[in-house]
């Protein structure tokens, strides 16, 4: 009998324990996120001095978060790989201003090839058609995608989850009405919806947030609604009701926390979709605007100047970068799902 090897195993910490984080962690997340958002969204309004150090606190926060993530997701290599990819880009995003990179908008040596040494600068990844350093542009490029992508997803979730809870818990005509609106929105192919909305609002980061909200919120609403319907029939909800709790309280404190797991998984996937969307839209000229570096933009600009083998790196670099980020999100989602299924 092999009872020996069992004793040294400890019961795995359940998934939700890991997801359900102490407030300190939330603090860290904010510490990472708020500066980054400030820097990217409101950069123009910040004074240069402020701009120069606003991101400093975010760097240790990011590293800390990464360490926590890796340690707590130990037993899911998939999740760890995902986290590593995502956090790599997060790290680059928050530390870009402090990395030894030249100004990503500075035209130096057009079409300098990979590893070329021109204008006393090494172009490790070459330069684009304006002679701007690809490496620098590629690294800086992740900032906007990350910030806009994540904020868009967040907003979409806030809206979607709220209506989902409403529809799922109150049901009745609330459900009817909300579902109808969602059906209308869901009957558009996403890209069509994006094109229409952005074409109407005009291309800009904030409008992308709006567009993404319109496109994703219905789907999210459906998910949350489903989860709510499922949870709603649980005894602890009855318990709360028989305690005479206010519906809003029940929704937010009793229902929502238990929909957490699936929502987080879905959110990761959705982050991927949003990233794709933003890059694609920018490529189509409906998204973020030049001159600041952005992967979609780099692709867009390169497609008309780099259509030969010799210059193809201009296309490949941003394409691979964005893919790696999305891969990160997807793996993360997979890992989390895997873990949530285990316990």
């Amino acid at each position: 009998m092999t009872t020996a090897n069992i004793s040294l195993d400890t019961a795995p910490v359940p998934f939700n324990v890991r997801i359900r984080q102490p407030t300190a962690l939330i603090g860290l997340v904010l510490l990472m996120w708020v500066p980054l958002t400030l820097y990217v969204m409101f950069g123009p309004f910040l004074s240069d001095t402020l701009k120069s150090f606003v991101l400093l606190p975010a760097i240790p926060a990011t590293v800390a978060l990464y360490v926590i993530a890796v340690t707590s997701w130990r037993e899911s290599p998939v999740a760890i790989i995902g986290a590593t990819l995502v956090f790599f880009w997060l790290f680059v995003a928050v530390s870009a201003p402090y990395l030894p990179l030249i100004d990503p908008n500075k035209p130096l040596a057009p079409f300098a090839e990979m590893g070329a040494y021109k204008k006393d600068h090494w172009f490790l990844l070459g330069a684009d058609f304006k002679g701007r350093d690809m490496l620098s542009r590629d690294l800086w490029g992740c900032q906007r995608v990350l910030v806009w992508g994540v904020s868009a997803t967040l907003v979409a979730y806030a809206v979607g989850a709220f209506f989902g809870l409403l529809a799922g818990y109150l049901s009745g005509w609330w459900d009817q009405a909300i579902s109808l609106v969602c059906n209308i929105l869901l009957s558009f192919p996403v890209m069509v919806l994006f094109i229409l909305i952005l074409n109407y609002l005009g291309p800009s980061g904030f409008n992308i947030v709006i567009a993404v909200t319109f496109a994703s919120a219905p789907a999210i609403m459906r998910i949350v609604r489903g989860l709510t319907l499922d949870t709603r029939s649980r005894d602890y909800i009855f318990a709360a009701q028989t305690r005479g709790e206010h519906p809003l309280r029940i929704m937010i404190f009793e229902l929502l926390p238990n929909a957490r797991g699936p929502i987080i998984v879905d959110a990761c996937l959705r982050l991927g979709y949003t990233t794709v969307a933003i890059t694609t839209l920018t490529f189509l000229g409906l998204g973020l605007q030049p001159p600041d570096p952005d992967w979609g933009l780099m692709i867009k600009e390169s497609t008309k100047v780099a259509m030969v083998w010799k210059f193809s790196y201009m296309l490949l670099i941003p394409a691979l970068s964005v893919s790696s980020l999305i891969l990160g999100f997807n793996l993360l989602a997979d890992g989390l799902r895997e873990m949530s299924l285990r316990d």
Partner: protein
Amino acid sequence: MLKLIGSRLLQMLLIMGVISFILFAIFDSDKFKKQIAVNELGGFAVSALSEQDYQAWLEKKGLNVPFYQRYLNWVAGVAQGDFGKSFEKNEPVADLLATRLVHTGLLALWVFALMIPLSLLFGVVAGMKEGSPQDRLTSFISVLTTSLPEIATAIILTVIFALGLRWLPPNAAMVNGWDWRALVLPVLTLVLYDFGYVARMTRASMAEVMNSQYIRTAILKGLPYRRVILRHALRNALIAPFTIIVLQMNWLLSGVVVVEVFFQYAGFGKLLLDAALFGDIYVIQAATLVAVFVAVASQIISDVGYTFLNPRIRFA
């Protein structure tokens, strides 16, 4: 069942009506009229136009009448199969749309023809034995492919096969007449993305079925493995993928925009984008409605198919 379909179709028409009206309303703004003028006459010319000339131009374009009136005319026209005339392309929208849809249809046809068998095969094989090498392989491939956005896939494929190896043309504009080689890259791009997703779904559903108790029953009945898989497992495992595959039509309409623009393939997606950028309201209208139609129709089909495949619901 028929009642259900009927009501869904009705709902669809309603939705279409609402949407088209909204579109007319928002594209009625001076901004968009100006945009059309600029695109057609050029910025210099437009700003040189006197107000009177501009009005004359609007009148020539039929943009001077209030939008609800235009909407009514348009609806009336649609009733007789006349979708109006494209400002940019200067030809009846119906013809324009028809040709573009044929192109995109062809693209989609190939995509499905390749994607469905591939993804189902991989998915089923992977799902049959969870955790087996082929399962891990499939999962890996599908995560990878789903993580490559079309634009990236398109670029990578183009760089390798068109710019590098020079086996295939880098764009699908097909100026020298029809050329299947030009279609390869766009199709591959779409297949690659879609394959992963469907394969994952198929795998998941197959795995779930294989873990179900009735499969255990079937095995413990002493049935041959082939029988268990083919008769007991597949039927139940393919219900979910079926609906997903049908819903891919909807997704494909989004996918083609990028691919067609990147490869300059004169299809539906490119048409829609051009129209939107130009402010070509009648084309936008028709294109959007077509898109919505396809989307909703595919939803209906998948629902109906689902109920049909699933006795539990069919005889509820």
